[in-house]
């Protein structure tokens, strides 16, 4: 027992405290969002809050398990874990259960398990293993493509199960690749791609073409070397405008109507008031309810279990994707800002620890953890507050569900374990 104690001291307690804060606060909000009437038994597993309490309890078992495994195990078995995760995803096509149009669940008795939640840490392990391999050089196109393949396989499998939200999460590995040597030009391309897509949709291809032309012409005249010809500039221009046009075409013909409407609502593209009114009752309904709930919380909130919109179940899916609206309503600006600050601190802490790792595997993995948490945090809260289009992904440690909670816990605690082991790597 004495040895155990000495060992525990090496864990990064700040990370663990931030994690505990989020899990505890998350549980309280699920309690609020899911209770109906008097709460007589907190362990009543026929209620969502009762189940979540069980999930939280099992999380601690999981943590002890993860922390008691040798740190080297994760690096050594990264590929195996990744393969198991892929098999689990593939298995869904045969044995999966469809819930809300997504075939992403295994049903075990009354329990359901969502393998995509576990695929995240598995992919993070695989990516870390691949990048930290001495043979790998992220500056080369060949290795870049291989790394991309590692994330694309699970991403495509998840997309095929109709869970577009979880697919987007795999884009978070861009931050990892960039940190590990991806050329600057990719960052530039990423930013330009997003800009072109948004500009094209919002202002039309013509105005986008004009803006692109102005930028390219000015950079042509401001260039320092004469090595690039005018034709190359012209080519870039055509590619940009073509891309913007392609995005427009895809938006108009490639998307399902509800996806199209979400983007239309976000960029305020719809001008027809009748259609807008219809969208307010359909695609925008959750968002409007969610924003109203958050707004009504005011500066200090209505108090725990006292949110009138939460009690009245005005926000659909409030205990899962829209859990942050409960925080907004019941804990107000103070409580919501607190949650945001804790998330930001947690991500920064993980980043800081990642940079301090001696082994590249641990560093890449830590970066992966920070990136995945960051993308979930940004998309979920951004969506709930109406800053980005509706994308259904959970808020880590907050949203209701065992798979999600365990997936994120494993993700984080493998890193805590790796971090605790850095002294041994001297």
């Amino acid at each position: 027992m004495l040895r155990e104690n000495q060992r525990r001291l090496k864990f990064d307690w700040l990370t663990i405290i931030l994690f505990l804060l989020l899990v505890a606060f998350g549980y309280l909000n699920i309690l609020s969002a899911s209770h109906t009437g008097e709460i007589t038994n907190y362990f009543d597993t026929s209620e969502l809050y009762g189940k979540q309490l069980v999930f939280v309890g099992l999380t601690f078992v999981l943590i002890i398990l993860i922390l008691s495994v040798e740190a080297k195990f994760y690096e050594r078995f990264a590929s195996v874990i990744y393969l198991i995760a892929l098999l689990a995803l593939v298995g869904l096509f045969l044995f999966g259960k469809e819930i809300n149009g997504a075939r992403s669940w295994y049903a075990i008795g009354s329990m359901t398990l969502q393998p995509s939640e576990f695929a995240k840490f598995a992919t993070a392990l695989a990516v870390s293993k691949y990048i930290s391999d001495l043979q790998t050089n992220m500056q080369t196109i060949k290795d870049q493509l291989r790394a991309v393949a590692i994330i694309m396989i699970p991403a495509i499998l998840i997309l095929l199960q109709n869970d577009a939200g979880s697919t987007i999460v795999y884009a978070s590995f861009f931050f990892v690749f960039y940190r590990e040597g991806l050329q600057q030009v990719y960052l530039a391309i990423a930013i330009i791609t997003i800009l072109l897509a948004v500009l094209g949709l919002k202002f039309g291809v013509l105005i986008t073409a004009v803006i692109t032309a102005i930028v390219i012409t000015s950079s042509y005249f401001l260039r320092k070397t004469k090595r690039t010809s005018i034709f190359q500039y012209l080519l870039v221009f055509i590619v940009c405008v073509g891309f913007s046009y392609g995005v427009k075409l895809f938006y108009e013909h490639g998307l399902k109507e509800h996806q199209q409407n979400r983007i239309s609502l976000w960029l305020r593209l719809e001008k027809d008031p009748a259609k807008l009114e219809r969208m307010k009752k359909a695609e925008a309904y959750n968002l409007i309810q969610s924003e109203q709930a958050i707004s009504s919380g005011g500066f200090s909130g209505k108090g725990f279990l006292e949110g009138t919109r939460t009690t009245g179940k005005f926000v659909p899916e409030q205990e899962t994707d829209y859990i942050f609206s409960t925080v907004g309503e019941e804990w107000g600006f103070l409580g919501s800002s607190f949650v945001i600050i804790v998330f930001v601190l947690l991500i920064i802490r993980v980043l800081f620890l990642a940079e301090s790792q001696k082994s590249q595997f641990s560093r890449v993995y830590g970066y992966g953890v920070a990136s995945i948490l960051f993308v979930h945090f940004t998309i979920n809260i951004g969506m709930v507050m109406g800053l980005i289009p509706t994308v259904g992904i959970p808020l880590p440690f907050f949203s209701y569900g065992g798979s999600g909670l365990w997936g994120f816990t494993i993700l984080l605690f493998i890193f805590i374990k790796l971090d605790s082991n850095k002294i041994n790597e001297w």
Partner: protein
Amino acid sequence: MRKLLLLMTVVLVGIIFIARLFYLQVYNTSAYNLYEDSAIKKEFNYPKRGYVYDRNGKLLVANQPSYDVMVIPREVVPLDSANLNEFCNLLKITKEDYNRKMDRATNYSPRLPSPFVPQLSKSDYAVLQEKMRKYEGFYIQKRSLRSYQTTIGANVLGDIGEVNRSIISKQPYYKMGDLIGKQGIELSYETTLRGTKGIKFIQKDRFNKNIGPYKDGIYDTLPKPGKDITITIDSELQAYGELLMKHKRGGIVALDPSSGEILAMVTGPSYDPNLLVGRDRSKNFSKLYRDSIANPTFDRGLQAQYPPGSPFKVINALIALQEDVVDTNDRFTCRMGYYYGSRRLTGCHHHKSPVDMNSGIAQSCNAYFVNVYRRIVDKYDDAGKGMNTWAKHARSFGLGNFLNNDLSVGQPGRIPDGDYYDRAYGDNRWGSTYIVSNAIGQGEVEATPIQLANMAAAIGNRGYYFTPHIIKSIEGETIPSQYTTPKYTTIDKEHFEPVIQGMFDVYNKGTAATLKVPGIDICGKTGTAENFVKIDSVKTQLTDHSIFVAFAPKDNPKIAIAVFVENGYWGSRFAGRMASLMIEKYIKGEVTLKHMENWILTHSLENEYAKPYSGEPFKINGETTLQVIDNYAIENQNQSTVKQ
């Protein structure tokens, strides 16, 4: 750089999120208010409004149920055309009305209820109630409207109407569609009569279904019923006064001098209070309000300020005795007026001369009172000091300021003092000869009929009065002591007897000798007031106002009265007759002076009032002829007015 990209992005996102939260929760949101929370349904339960009884226990105002269709625009589910048609038909409105009403409600507030179609008829309500569930965002609110048990006393009783936005912003108790007292006792006793509405907060879900009381009902309240009140008005006397005032404009205020209770408060022209009940209220009200010529919403008994004329002379007599500047036996010569040197400052009529105080009052001699008044003002070397003393005494009769009572309207009148003339003429650049009109109640002195009635009460009481008020009792409450505490004038009790004897002689042998009522000793004083209007911006004189002030009986008076009839010419012609009839009616309970009553009922001033607007030249005062109207028509109106 590579290490910093994610770090900076995380911090940036955190800042953007907190800024967004600040915008949503702090900047763009007013303080949380349960009433504005659309997740909580508010069910109001309006209590019974208090009943109003007259001093003899006769019910004057009761209630009737009323049903408003209310709308919360944000909760309205747009209706398809078939449903919209049906709904409009049920409400008896057009589709354009529907859209206009909806726009107005949305414009007021999308999330607060406002009345959509107020005051449904009972049959419309019965049909609509069945189908109301189909129309989300609409509901029926039960309220109680007034049900007048009488057709008289519109100015006394007042009315209730929907609150406007400025009332709501000042008094958060009221919500859109609530009713509030607008005039009369409904206004001055609003909180007593209204009671307190009850409220239930009900938690709703997003399908607008009730899921239970909010916080187990800890904020819910039960309605507190409004209290019944009894007012001091004698409804028979009031009805009689209104009958006498038919075809005339003016005011009558009758008080009980022993308590300050207002027995009658008549204004003419008046209207039937039932006009201001129900869906046509605002239409009828604006019609009455816009009639700027007859001005039926102007309470002439309370708001008309005029130079009181001769009745004010008795005040000067009392002040002179109190200031010891004359003796009751001092005589003054009248040469058909008062002369200052060779200049005639004021005229007079033919009577024996010289006169002492008793004859001065009984004959209403102008010269006598100018002499008396100049002695008061010139008592000190400084006319300003004299005037200030005079004003102090006059004001102690409740003149020159608001009576500060429980009536919803009033006017201060005016008693000028030294400072007033210093401002008008310059410091010390005036003397008593400048302002002799005040001696005879003309000039700068102004009073309302209720102030004159109160003045008569103070004289009848030999030096004190109770603030005139309209509340007799409130269920379970005592009335404020300000109405039960006597207010003393600055005149000593012994000075009243000679003055009262003078007023008694007005009836006995003076200007009101023809108005005697058998068996009742009345003390009174006639008055006339010159008056002018602007016609095409030319100041034009009209026939004088007829004024009469009296109290009776002479000892321990039971009634004090002031009557004021616009353009009625001399005091005893209209006002004096009406005062005598009112006094007889109140003290005896019946009228024996049938010839006098008949004279009043068959003489109209409508032609007199039409003259200035005819566009033709017209004559005034002595050169006019009185308009006589058909007795049969009077009888008919008689029956409809004195409805029991």
